[in-house]
């Protein structure tokens, strides 16, 4: 049996039901553990004070915002190549979740910016790229909404997602060219993040809850996308039934 059979709508509905419940539970638990641990059981940072705790929301949301787009790109490619309806719907389902993640990253960043840089917003490359990413999400969702026929919508949004990805990378580069920023480098994701010994190193006390929180976000993202995909499948099923009833 090929793996693609799990992408048949009926099969998909079957196996995602239980998986969904468990991802929700697991995601919720790890998020709660990560956040509670992070907020209440870590010391304040010597430079940033208690505001550093926002990192437990900010970093996972920022990571998921990017990963959601990558997931949409993959799902779009699968739709274009293999024409599996579920993958198109998964891409559609992921977009609002990704956009919400982008918004969370932007808002937590802005709240954090006030104590750190003395301003809610600065035209820093990292922040700016997220703003552009937000616009890409917005356009992608608007295009889905604007097209009546679901297959046409899936095709067009898939092309938009591919072209958009190229331009998103270009924008990221352009933005770096345009302004040097205030924002922190990517130290969490660097190989030596936990064991490293640079000044910027995120010490163990912060890192462990952070990773738990990241895991929570990932699981929650998966759960939300599954949930929304299931909703989309049900909506399509309704549509198909209605069309059939009209013709009967």
């Amino acid at each position, binding site marked *: 049996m090929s793996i693609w059979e799990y992408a*048949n709508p009926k099969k998909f509905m079957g196996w995602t039901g239980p998986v969904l419940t468990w991802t929700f539970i697991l995601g919720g638990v790890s998020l709660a553990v990560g956040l509670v641990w992070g907020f209440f059981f870590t010391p304040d940072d010597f430079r940033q004070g208690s505001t550093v705790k926002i990192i437990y929301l900010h970093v996972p949301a920022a990571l998921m915002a990017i990963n959601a787009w990558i997931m949409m790109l993959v799902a779009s490619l699968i739709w274009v190549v293999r024409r599996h*309806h579920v993958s198109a719907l998964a891409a559609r389902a992921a977009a609002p979740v990704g956009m919400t993640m982008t918004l969370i990253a932007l808002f937590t960043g802005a709240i954090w910016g006030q104590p750190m840089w003395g301003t809610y917003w600065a035209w820093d490359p990292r922040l700016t790229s997220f703003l552009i990413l937000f616009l890409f999400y917005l356009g992608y969702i608007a295009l889905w909404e604007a097209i009546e*026929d*679901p297959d046409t919508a899936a095709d067009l949004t898939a092309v938009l997602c591919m072209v958009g990805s190229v331009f998103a990378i270009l924008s990221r580069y352009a933005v770096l060219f345009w302004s040097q920023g205030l924002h922190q480098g990517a130290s969490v994701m660097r190989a030596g993040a936990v064991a490293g010994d640079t000044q910027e190193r995120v010490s163990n006390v912060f890192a462990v809850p952070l990773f738990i929180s990241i895991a929570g976000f990932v699981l929650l993202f998966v759960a939300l996308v599954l949930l929304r995909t299931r909703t989309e499948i049900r909506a*399509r099923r309704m549509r*198909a039934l209605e069309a059939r009833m009209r013709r009967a």
Partner: protein
Amino acid sequence: MLQVRNLSCARGGVPVLNAVSFDVAAGQALILRGPNGVGKTTLLRTLAGVQPALDGTVDFPEEQGAYASHADGIKAALSVTENLVFWAEVYGGDLPDDILEKFDLTDLRDRPGGTLSAGQKRRLGLARLGVIGRKVLFLDEPTVSLDRFSVKLFADWLRGHLAAGGIAVIATHIDLGLDAPELDLTPYRAAPDAHGGSDEAFL
């Protein structure tokens, strides 16, 4: 020679026609009949390759099909001649000398397309078919808005086209005075539970 085998097509994700098969030999025309909404336009669009078929095959000499839809594609700002010359160029040909007479457009040759009456516009739209030099024509209600004289004019041109080995598939509700077999599409209506609609996978 046009061969259609087991063609099924859908519109807006809903299957409309099921397993249509027919042959049209060179020099022949086929008239599509059927009540409004049965799927004549859908079938013609599928034959012409504007939309993909759900199932089945369409076979005719490569690069020989031409489609004429409800809309004529006439540019309001271009004159009648300019409109025709454009299509001639797109198809890499020249404007036949007698095309304007054949469609009674001689008096209108320099009028902008936008100032034509409904029937005059239609004549111009049909004249395009005489310009592009394609053999296999898919015509969707070509005589809408035409007066009796123009209908005859068009039927004459069509007879000439067929005599030269052309093929035409024509959807129409009125009588063109052509001596051609008719195909009523009503029996091919897709059953409500037909497979292949874009959403069938979800049921």
